[in-house]
């Protein structure tokens, strides 16, 4: 009944295009059944014109507008679970309000049962309905958890790109081990190819999350987590840390640039030509606390650096310098 392959954006987009003509009911025929509630009349359409700026931004409900197979599957399971629950939740809400209204003291037509306190039949129903719904949802959860296990490789004919991600205070480092380059605060990937991430943290816990690509995963010092994602088409996506990590947390976001395969290769080639080298020394300098680091790249990476981070041969980040307020954090100094 839902249409996961139809992103939410087009639904709002259609509404906006239709609105100025004031004939939403007519144009709705061209749309998917779910797209446009038929109760909308001309007045709401006019409202939509005024609300257009709001709706324009509203259409970027990115979790419902995924750009890769993982995000799509997350969204499908989200919508499906919601639909299954609404089957029971909506009648409950209606019944609550209806009972509360009908059995008001002033309603002479309502009957009164001053003693009634037990009915085996109703008891059985009220236990078994939630139980059956939960059995169904439990099945969805079991299958979904296994299908969408972040560590599970994506089915694809293209070999996966290896990326090693490190969360630092407060920036992201992405190492491309096969290509021998690295990037700070910008992730560049080929569109249409699966990406396999190995993730860790240089200091405190963080979580790597690109909402439009799907599942997030935590990063922890001394440990590696696995994540598989894919961007279906070229584009720029917003990525961020979704686990609070201290004073500079708000600036721990990055852009994900999905490029066509040949452009990605070109980017790798260009990256190899300029920039510093990521060695244990430059890495250690990077672990010091800082915010608002402009994206930059390393033209080469010391082999096995990620291994040295996760085995703590390279020590964890030093944390703040002494004092209060923390001198290394002066919000929004650059930019």
């Amino acid at each position: 009944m839902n249409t996961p392959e139809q992103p939410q954006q087009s639904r709002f987009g259609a509404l906006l295009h239709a609105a100025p003509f004031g004939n939403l009911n007519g144009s709705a025929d061209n749309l998917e059944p779910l797209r446009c509630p038929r109760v909308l009349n001309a007045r709401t359409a006019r409202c939509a014109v005024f609300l257009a700026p709001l709706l324009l931004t509203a259409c970027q409900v990115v979790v419902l507008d995924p750009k890769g197979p993982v995000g799509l599957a997350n969204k499908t399971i989200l919508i499906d679970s919601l639909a299954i629950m609404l089957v029971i939740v909506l009648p409950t809400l209606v019944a609550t309000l209806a009972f509360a209204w009908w059995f008001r003291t002033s309603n002479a037509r309502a009957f009164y049962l001053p003693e009634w306190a037990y009915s085996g039949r109703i008891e059985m129903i009220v236990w078994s309905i939630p139980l059956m719904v939960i059995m169904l949802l439990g099945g969805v959860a079991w299958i979904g958890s296994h299908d969408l296990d972040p560590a599970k490789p994506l089915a694809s004919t293209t070999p996966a790109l290896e990326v090693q991600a490190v969360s630092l205070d407060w920036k992201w480092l992405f190492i491309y081990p096969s290509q021998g380059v690295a990037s700070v605060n910008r992730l560049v990937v080929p569109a249409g190819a699966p990406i396999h991430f190995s993730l860790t943290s240089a200091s405190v816990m963080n979580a790597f999350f690109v909402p439009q690509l799907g599942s997030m995963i935590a990063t922890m010092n001394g440990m590696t987590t696995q994540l598989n994602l894919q961007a279906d088409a070229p584009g720029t996506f917003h990525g961020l840390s979704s686990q609070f990590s201290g004073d500079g947390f708000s600036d721990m976001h990055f852009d994900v640039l999905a490029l066509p395969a040949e452009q990605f290769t070109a980017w790798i080639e260009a990256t190899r030509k300029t920039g510093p080298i990521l060695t244990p020394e430059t890495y250690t300098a990077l672990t010091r606390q800082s915010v608002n680091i402009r994206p930059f790249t390393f033209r080469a990476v010391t082999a096995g650096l990620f291994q040295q981070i996760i085995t703590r041969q390279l020590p964890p980040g030093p944390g703040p310098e002494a004092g209060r307020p923390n001198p290394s954090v002066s919000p929004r100094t650059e930019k």
Partner: protein
Amino acid sequence: MFGKLSWAAIPFDQPIPLIAGSIVIFVVLAVIAWIVLSGHLPYLWREWVTSVDHKRIGVMYVLLGLVMLLRGFIDAIMMRSQQAFAYRTPGYLPPEHYDQIFSAHGTIMIFFGAMPLVIGLMNFVVPLQLGVRDVAFPTLNSVGFWLTATGALLVNLSLVIGEFSRAGWLPYPPLSELTYSPGVGVDYYLWALEISGVGTLLAGINLITTILKLHAPGMTYMRMPMFCWTALASNLLIVAAFPILTATLTMLVLDRYFGFHFFTNEAGGNMMMFVNLIWAWGHPEVYILVLPAFGVFSEVVSTFSRRPLFGYRSMVAATMAICIISFTVWLHHFFTMGGGADVNAMFGIASMIIAVPTGVKIFNWLFTMYGGRIVYSTPMLWAIGFMVTFVIGGMTGVLLAMPPADFVLHESLFLVAHFHNVIIGSVLFGAFAGYAYWFPKAFGFRLHEGLGKAAFWLTLVGFYVVFVPLYIAGLSGMTRRLQHFDVAAWRPWILIAAIGILIMACAAACQIAQLVVSIRQREALRDQTGDPWNGRSLEWATPSPPPAFNFAVLPNVRGEEAYWGMKQRALEQAKLGEEPAYVDIEMPRNSPTGFVCAFFATFMGFALIWHIWWMVGLAALGAYATFVVFAWRDKDEYIIPAETVARIDRVNRSARNAVLARHEGAP
């Protein structure tokens, strides 16, 4: 001499905490000065501070909860307004301050707002409903309350001396370790919760013992009011879960104070162990809060629908099922830590299973309303608002319990909206329902209905205006705890939420106005009979407010809904039962033990936070000495003579006879 404490600890450079702190100190000093100058101090000391009466302690708990609720709400206003301003700008709160605000908001709301409210209601109501004269350990009860107050005091002290934790309301290591949080903020958090956690544990032990061991004659388990059952389940959870919290925080204390490595990055520490342990307490904590609220709603829905609670045994089973299952779901707080598909799926399903008994409860309240004659008083409005809101919150909760959906919603504003949806929708609504429902019992006059209803509607509307946008912001990929942001798509939702919080501020103003107006109009709102709502359980058999001994003679319980049965028999026979033979009643003597002990605990906590070791030693000695003095006291009870009991009870009986006569005359 003073450890880490120096003048640098006072935030002279930061106007916001300084001004806020000065105002609070001024108000507190003004109140104390007024109390002393108007000669109320002896009364306050004798009747409240040293009181071991469960009703007085319950009232003090609720008062503490309401004041802290206001403090936490001010934090909420600051968070919402900061985010409303901080689009592509730094806003008005720098990160090191904003991080304290949201950490304090969560800590205060859960530990010092919600917990005192529910424990206060249980303390006040449970002995009355069981038909007994006090809790099992009255002095311990007082100690528990004052230790909770100590924790609240320490958290609020951090506003002006030093700083509060910047690591969130649950301080995940390694961020909360010394390396990454070298300041005293986390120490304030740790010691406030260590001390108040002991207080909560004492309250839990006390109430369990009371429910299991003290009953009026004939008050068997299956005749207990629903609120007593939920109180039992909640306190069982307290006793099982709070030691986990205390132990976990102690491990973090050892890490920070003695260089242990339980959760550090180095030397074999494992931060995931902290996350596991804290949520092994944290999830039962949710049910510690919510179960008593369920109990309140059971009482309220039944009373104001003029019907017995539907499916009482089913409700008991559901309550105890929630009590047990709540210990098997904690991992759903960190599906994204990479636990693996089997583990995630198991805990996801376990979390969903809790929705079954919870759903049963909703349906049973629904069928309690079915065939009722519903009176729309303020408590009933809170109950109906709860049923609608909680069903929605429960639904988004099951979505979050679905691991693949949680992978895109975890730690987002969707999650924030969800847990506010369930906690505000159940615990806060429940606390306000209980507050309005039992207020006349505690003080002898009802609360102003009009302002109460205004507060309800403003809270309900304000709640949805705040949190529906946050759900959508979460679906738009906005994570929580952002001090500033520059994604345009999030902004409209944050602005709408800021409008919502203004509506909720009006609701808070209504609540305060309601209390003030009700006190001023107390003669008009006086509850003459002790049974203002036509109640069904034993607390309504006592006068309002109840005498120190609650019941002149312990009631003889003959079935479920004990007081309803008594009323029906009185109506049938057209008279009250025979006047009983009054005897002397022994009641526990007041004791300053709790207050003095908490006094020392406050200094001990403060000294531990600032590494003032000599003061730690002195305060520990003082607290120990307090107990020794208490243990050696000779007289621990006093006698209320039979004549006094008879005099008080005859007034109560004449009030009930008047009601009976009116009832006779009516048809």
